[in-house]
């Protein structure tokens, strides 16, 4: 059996996905009100560390980016920078109705309404705000996707970079951002 054989790559993928699934380091970028749902999720009441979910301090170390609520255009700029600093494989979880369709900020002059136009989102968690149970269900869903190899938001982002960039530049007129070469 060759090392670069397709079948052996499959076995490696299964092992790697199993490890990734059980070790999700989250970067809780505290946007909006959803950040307040993270402490109960992580501490002794709901204890997300059972699932291997654990906080990471910097984007370099993180696997999952949590967008916890509405995003103003000003914050979106920072979130894009954070997302592009993260290392592959990386996943995005969108919290609450604000990231899905704008939620209660649907007619605000400076909040975006659909997060997946600007960043590839793997899992949306519905609710305003989602309870910690819903957050844990979202993590379980993400684990399922990772195990099946379907959580490929980062690949989607790389392949359709022009589309995402065009959308991002539409709401961020002065695009003064460093170019990352991943």
């Amino acid at each position, binding site marked *: 059996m060759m090392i670069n054989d397709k079948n052996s790559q499959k076995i490696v993928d299964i092992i790697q996905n199993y490890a990734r699934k059980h070790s999700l380091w989250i970067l809780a970028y505290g946007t909006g009100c959803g950040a307040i749902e993270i402490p109960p999720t992580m501490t002794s009441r709901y204890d997300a560390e059972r699932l291997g979910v654990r906080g990471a301090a910097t984007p370099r170390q993180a696997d999952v980016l949590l967008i916890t609520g509405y995003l103003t255009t*000003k914050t979106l*700029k920072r979130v894009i920078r954070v997302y592009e600093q993260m290392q592959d494989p990386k996943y995005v979880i969108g919290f609450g109705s604000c990231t*899905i369709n*704008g939620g209660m900020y649907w007619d605000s002059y400076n909040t975006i*309404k659909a997060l997946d136009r600007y960043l590839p989102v793997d899992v949306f968690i519905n609710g305003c705000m989602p309870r910690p149970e819903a957050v844990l269900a979202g993590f379980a869903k993400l684990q399922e996707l990772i195990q099946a190899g379907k959580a490929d938001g980062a690949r989607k982002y790389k392949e359709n970079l022009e589309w995402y960039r065009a959308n991002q530049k539409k709401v961020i007129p002065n695009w003064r951002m460093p170019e990352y070469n991943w």
Partner: protein
Amino acid sequence: MEEIKSTIIQRIKTHFSDATEKEYPYNRVDFSVKKETIPAILFYLKDEMGFKHLSHISCIDWLEENEFEVVFIVWSPTDKIKVFVHTRVDRENPVMDNVDMIWRQANTYEREMREMFGIQFTGLEAPEEFLLEDWEGPPPMRRDFDTEAYATNTYWERPGREDAKDIRETIEKRSGEILPDFAKKYTR
């Protein structure tokens, strides 16, 4: 309390002839002055009468009267009385005197008002941008700024949320949950 309030009104009215007072219950007194008097009356309130604390500076857009109303709220920690100082600024040419030499924190409020309402404060030293970044439209808190149209034009909206149907009865039928009577009064 009442004596203190009447002394305050007396002193202000003797010093500033254009001040008209309006009395509120409890510990609140309101004055309306011309916009040129604002720095003088605030100086007087702070230095002579012990209103050391600037609680807030607020702005109201009176679109129909073509004027902005700027409200300064000051608080006296010794007398436990708050004084509201109202003034009116022309909406077409909104220029006001800068008061951040009296209270340093007024700078922040003035920057916010400059950004959100477009009121220019003469001699305000601050960077142009405050809360909004790369904002190119008109000041967004003015009432003639159509927020909804701007949001619809700028941000993509996921289809599906525009039909705001009343689905409470459907839910009632499906889940057997009984809605209270008062809830049926309110419809979309």
